[in-house]
């Protein structure tokens, strides 16, 4: 790390540290900042979807409109990408989207803890989807689900090679699915922290990194939403493969 370089002490990774809220060691049940920020995430999502939509007005208020637009957005995404029979998984996919979206957005608050920047969290999310989708594929289609890997439109000689590549890419899916989200969140926050450290070190020119951090913050806002969207749409894509495995 940069500790040797005199006054410039930047610890970009400190913001990701998991700490117990009330001190002491961290056991699996200890309330930590993870607990706090996940609770806030759930609270924020509930606030929008339950409190915001409480009016049930025919002509919606702004919050109700936002809740309805989120609903319609995810609903349409599932229908478009995974087909109409995927709509029965709508509640879980919606939960995923809301959780990731609000975890990303809340993580942008200064001094906040970003739960989705932790690979442990995103890996659980991604592997849940992976195992659920794989199990669903086998339940719905039995062994014909394996035709997903057997590209029948390719020349026969190429098919075993393609099958190998397809199998590998299938198993890389949850890895890339989880690391993409965690990496994007981690990278943005770490870069912001580094720039903020520059501001402390530059003295009179502190405003330059601050401007950079401002621009970066706007980008991060975009990334936070897009990563939530991408996580959800990839879930839909994987779900589509399980529901309609034929190439």
């Amino acid at each position, binding site marked *: 790390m940069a500790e040797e370089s005199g006054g410039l002490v930047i610890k970009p*990774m400190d913001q990701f540290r998991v700490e117990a809220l009330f001190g002491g060691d961290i056991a699996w049940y200890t309330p930590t900042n993870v607990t706090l920020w996940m609770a806030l995430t759930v609270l924020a999502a509930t606030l929008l979807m339950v409190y915001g939509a409480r009016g049930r007005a025919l002509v919606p208020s702004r919050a109700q409109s936002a809740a309805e637009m989120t609903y319609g957005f995810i609903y349409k995404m599932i229908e478009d990408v995974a087909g109409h029979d995927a709509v029965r998984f709508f509640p879980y996919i919606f939960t995923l989207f809301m959780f990731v979206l609000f975890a990303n957005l809340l993580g942008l608050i200064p001094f906040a803890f970003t739960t989705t920047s932790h690979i442990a969290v995103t890996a659980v999310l991604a592997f849940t989807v992976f195992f659920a989708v794989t199990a669903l594929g086998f339940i719905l289609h039995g062994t014909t689900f394996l035709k997903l890997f057997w590209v029948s439109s390719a020349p026969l000689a190429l098919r075993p090679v393609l099958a190998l590549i397809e199998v590998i890419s299938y198993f890389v899916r949850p890895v890339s699915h989880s690391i993409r989200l965690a990496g994007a969140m981690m990278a943005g926050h770490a870069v912001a922290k580094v720039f903020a450290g520059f501001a402390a070190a530059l003295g009179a020119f502190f405003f330059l990194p601050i401007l950079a951090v401002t621009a970066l913050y706007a980008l991060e806002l975009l990334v936070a939403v897009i990563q939530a969207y991408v996580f959800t*749409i990839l879930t839909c894509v994987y779900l589509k493969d399980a529901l309609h495995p034929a190439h």
Partner: protein
Amino acid sequence: MEGDIVQMGAYIGAGLACLGMGGAGIGVGHVAGNYLAGALRNPSAAAGQTAFLFIGIAFAEALGIFSFLVALLLMFAV
């Protein structure tokens, strides 16, 4: 002395790993540029393809994030 060399190697490796992000940048730019080119050619079909735009960007970006991850691992975990 030995630890310093290891550390030096790790830092050099981290820097090299960052080159991979350039590739991801090219990939994302390629996806977005081709989307734009197609959208300008047939604007009516563009709206239906934004989902594929984001999926393509996500796949291209993931590889850049992998290289970033390798850099981070070399910096902090090796």
